[in-house]
């Protein structure tokens, strides 16, 4: 045990320098004014952006639910395939992730544009053009596309461990294929569901690239708001820190609720 503790020192140092200290700095900035006074003004100022918070949570939630609905049957089918087919399919699932994130999102810009490929194709059969880009739908699409593998992988890795004979036992005991899923597969894959939701929801709620590129100016998210406070015209790092802090608390609350659905020994955070 003693040797093991020594090996964890590099990570502990890393955590201290790059996670804990910045976190304290964020909190510190959030409660200071530009001229060095303690204040809660920044936190209360966050309130005026409530609509952006609501929109961010809503879009991230929507993207997470769509990811779950799409990924769940896929992951299940994947986990029940023969072993050598599984690795090929997994490769296909992972393939988009080998491409640069920005590039992938740029690709969607050209696809969805008013003169983009989709509208051109629709035009050929006499439809459209439709407004696809710069809508909240496009933002959700971007989130789903980019974060789907993060939903599939945890689901797959949990489902793959479900013994085939447990599933056979369920059908032996009278479950049709739908009931096998609801009574056995879903309860046994709960840890995968919760970690998948976390892996999608957290990056989705704080993204700023996807909303910037696919959402236009009218679909501002929290991520964009924070970025603007640090790099944009409305330079105000104290407000930015306050927004980050509030966002963190919101995510923490949502995750705590999520963990209520997870078995005791598999709590995520």
């Amino acid at each position: 045990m003693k040797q093991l503790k020594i090996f964890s020192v590099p990570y502990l140092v890393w955590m201290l320098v790059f996670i804990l200290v910045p976190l304290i700095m964020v909190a510190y900035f959030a409660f200071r004014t530009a001229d060095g006074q303690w204040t809660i003004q920044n936190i209360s100022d966050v309130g005026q952006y409530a609509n952006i918070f609501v929109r961010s949570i809503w879009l991230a939630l929507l993207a997470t639910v769509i990811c779950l609905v799409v990924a769940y049957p896929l992951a299940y089918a994947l986990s029940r395939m023969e072993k050598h087919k599984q690795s090929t399919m997994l490769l296909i699932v992972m393939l988009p992730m080998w491409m640069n994130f920005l590039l992938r999102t740029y690709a969607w810009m050209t696809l969805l544009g008013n003169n983009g490929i989709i509208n051109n194709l629709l035009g050929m059969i006499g439809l459209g053009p439709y407004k696809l880009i710069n809508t909240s739908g496009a933002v959700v699409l971007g989130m789903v596309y980019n974060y789907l593998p993060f939903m599939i992988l945890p689901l797959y890795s949990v489902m793959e461990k479900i013994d085939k004979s447990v599933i056979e036992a369920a059908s032996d005991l009278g479950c049709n294929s739908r009931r096998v899923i609801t009574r056995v597969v879903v309860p046994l894959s709960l840890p995968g569901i919760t970690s998948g939701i976390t892996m999608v929801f957290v990056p989705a709620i704080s993204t700023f690239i996807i909303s910037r590129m696919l959402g236009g100016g009218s679909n501002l998210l929290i991520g964009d708001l924070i970025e603007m406070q640090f790099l944009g015209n409305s330079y105000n790092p104290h407000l930015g820190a306050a927004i980050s802090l509030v966002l963190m608390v919101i995510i923490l609350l949502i995750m705590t609720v999520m963990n209520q659905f997870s078995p005791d020994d598999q709590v995520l955070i």
Partner: protein
Amino acid sequence: MDNIVSLKNIVVEFEDGEQILKNISLDIKDKEFVTFLGPSGCGKTTTLRIIAGFLEPTSGDVMFEGKRINDLPPHKRNVNTVFQRYALFPHLNVYENIAFGLRVKNVPEKEILKRVGEMLELVNLKGFEKRSVNRLSGGQQQRVAIARALVNHPKVLLLDEPLGALDLKLRKEMQTELRKIQQALELTFVYVTHDQEEALTMSDTVVVMNNGVIQQVGSPTDIYNEPVNAFVADFIGESNIINGCMPQDCVVEFTGKRFECVDKGFAPNETVDVVIRPEDVKVIPAEKAKLTGIVESVVFKGVHYEMVVDGVDHKWMIHSTKAEPVGAMIGMDFDPFDIHIMKKSEEG
């Protein structure tokens, strides 16, 4: 007694053309304890999975109470399975595991309580209701698996090497217990094992399988005393199998000597397998014997000594309650009815 399950010319073939079952036909009678016995890969588990409905035969018919059930999915069949590695639901406690089948069928809560209670009593697990199945010993998990299957009142219970993972003592206890349960509930049990002793102790009927073919069907006594070929003889208990020939009815010649036997109906001088159980070899003084050999090794086995005796053309395995010194010359003799004559099996 009626047949409850009938298999008619069942063939199971994999995509690559490999045949797992080669034309199996078998009738299983109601309230019978039938055991499929054979080495691993002989097709016994495959046969069980066909009855359960997890596998559809490539050709042939599966009949249940006279009706063809080939296309019936597992959840609609009136059979339940006890799986090899238990396959309990890890997210449910003991009570909920046993209640599972009843809940699926929307049985009223009051009746579930009553029937699960009965089962817990039957398998001696009263007081374990709330226990997580992950915190049970192997033997207890096994009992839950049996209760979970039996609570549904299936007409046939399928058991796939259910005692394989238990230690010897527990296995013996469970064998007796399973047999008791089967007789008390008057159910048909179809049991799969590779352990010949287990098959002989528990069954009404033993089905010996090898390479996807049924070798012999019979009562344990028949199978042991009258094996139809050298494979069965060798697989069920230990045997001395010697090449021989039949010069005439009731006379067999092997290792150059002639012996009296009770078998008839072979062609003159037909070559045969001669099977003699190690416990049927009588040790007599060498000077009085037609057949002699030198004791090579003696191993104490508890009830008897196991001796290997080097004869002229054959190393004899002998079980005897008296040990002979290693290196001694002994004589061997056999009673006529202890010499079993078998047609040469095709595998040679």
